[in-house]
């Protein structure tokens, strides 16, 4: 039970990653892999500031700001310097590896004794429940897990609502249209390059926010923690789309969060059943590959008989 609660909490935290991937890959159709660096940047900045005694909320948002800067750089490389989109992301990601090491000063920063948003949530939980374990439906649940499972989804809800309303403003609508039809939005007086830069800043800001929270949840920031994150985020987005079955914005955002949580639960169960953790990234990659190929394969299978009758 505690395993699943922990997985759900990570799922909610990483739904920020999935939302960021949704913004870049789905709204902007921009295959941005800056995420692998920016999620670590968020964690690194937050961890360093926390060990220097900054307030958890400020440190966390400073981390998100770092991610926005990273996204801005990728966006400028792609739009102003005309560099291939994938390569822009790779360049930023590679540079971020060194920058993250510079920020952290070493490859791993433990946060076990620092005042973080997680320790804050735990303290509130203990004050509210008055003890350190709870009995829920006969299960023994640590107050830490219970309070996190209230606080994290609440935070995610706030972020999702903010994102939803932002994407329905004049600016947000123009951003969505840019990914949809850049030619049209230029003809309506919008600099589509600027929109892409804004979009990547937004995307990587969300991702870095997820990284900052993840570091606080797992109790450390590590320079390697970003590896494979884009594919994980993409897997969550794909599961989410399968769950809600539409790309309408409100549903898509909800689905992405649900997809992230479900993905984490599946991973936790698989690991519990004896899946080698080292194989996790291979399996995730295979899953995303299958999700990308299968719909097309099914379509061509369906179309084949028809083309035969025509011939």
């Amino acid at each position, binding site marked *: 039970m505690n395993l699943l609660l922990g997985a759900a909490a990570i799922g909610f935290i990483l739904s920020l990653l999935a939302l960021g991937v949704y913004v870049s890959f789905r709204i902007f159709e921009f295959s941005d892999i800056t995420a692998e660096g920016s999620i670590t940047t968020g964690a690194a900045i937050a961890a360093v500031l926390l060990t220097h005694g900054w307030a958890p909320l400020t440190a966390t948002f400073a981390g998100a700001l770092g991610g926005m800067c990273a996204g801005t750089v990728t966006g400028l490389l792609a739009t102003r310097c005309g560099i291939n989109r994938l390569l822009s992301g790779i360049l930023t990601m590679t540079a971020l590896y060194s920058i993250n090491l510079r920020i952290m000063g070493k490859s791993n920063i433990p946060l076990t004794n620092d005042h973080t948003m997680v320790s804050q949530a735990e303290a509130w939980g203990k004050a509210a429940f008055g003890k350190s374990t709870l009995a829920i439906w006969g299960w023994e649940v640590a107050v830490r897990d219970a309070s996190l499972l209230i606080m994290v989804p609440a935070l995610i809800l706030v972020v999702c609502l903010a994102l939803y309303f932002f994407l329905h403003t004049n600016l947000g609508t123009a951003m969505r249209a840019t990914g949809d039809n850049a030619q049209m939005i230029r*003809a*309506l007086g919008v600099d589509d390059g600027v929109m892409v830069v804004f979009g990547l800043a937004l995307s990587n800001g969300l991702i870095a926010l997820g990284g900052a929270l993840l570091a606080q949840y797992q109790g450390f920031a590590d320079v390697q923690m970003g590896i494979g994150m884009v594919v994980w985020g993409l897997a969550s987005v794909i599961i989410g789309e399968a769950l809600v079955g539409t790309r309408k914005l409100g549903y898509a955002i909800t689905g992405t969060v649900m997809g992230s949580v479900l993905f984490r639960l599946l991973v936790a169960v698989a690991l519990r059943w004896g899946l080698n953790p080292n194989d996790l990234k291979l399996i995730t990659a295979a899953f995303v590959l299958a999700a990308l190929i299968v719909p097309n394969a099914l379509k061509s299978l369906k179309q084949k008989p028809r083309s035969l009758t025509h011939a």
Partner: protein
Amino acid sequence: MLEIRNVWKTFHPGTPNEVRALQGVDLTLEDGSFTIIIGTNGSGKSTTLNAVAGSFFVDEGQLRIGGTDVTRWPEHRRASLIGRVFQNPFSGTAPSLSIAENFSLAARRGLSRGLGPALGSRMKAEMRDAVRQLNMGLEARLDNAIGTLSGGQRQALTLLMAAWRKPQLLLLDEHTAALDPKSADQVIALSETLIARDRLTTLMVTHSMQQAASLGDRLIMMHRGKVIHDLRGAEKARVRPADLLERFEELRRSELLDESAAEMLERLYV
């Protein structure tokens, strides 16, 4: 209103694919005029429109709209003065956004876009009235994604959107060429209504001699990147599709003559 001064454009210069698309185009449109451009394939008529819209920068020459020099303005900046409808019905709208959202984008053409809500109730009411005039039943589907509509419906909406904020210049680039005849007629009728209602200065490219003869108050014929005929007033009013076809035929004959003459010269002197 629009001044095109000696505009030149060569694509892929210095390569085997070099195309000298515009070779000194000169054209001045008066305020409120409705000008049709016709021409053979590759004559530079669509290129002229794209040069005005800012899809690319011209190599030489000057473009002025309403007295303002826009030659070096990027496309999105010129859009504050220009409404556009493209040949491809899918080019003018964002398919995954709703009809209402597409309109809200057009309603801020050339204005800043901040954090205000894109769709107010007043704007929705206005656009519902406008869309109702299309008689396509779309006013009940304002929240549907525009990608679910037919090409004709999308093109009609693009036209409404382009004219929504009364542009100083309306550019129509063969905007009915990809539509079925019935949709094309609807879109042409709508174009005439909107242009007449707001006295929009319009530049329209067409392949249809029918449209070229019946629409507009001025007719430009382009060939090899230049304006070769310019009919206005009574002369334009008299013109029939057959006359235009004849002019194309003339062109074809003179081209043939050119080629045979060149061949003869080659035989004689090379």
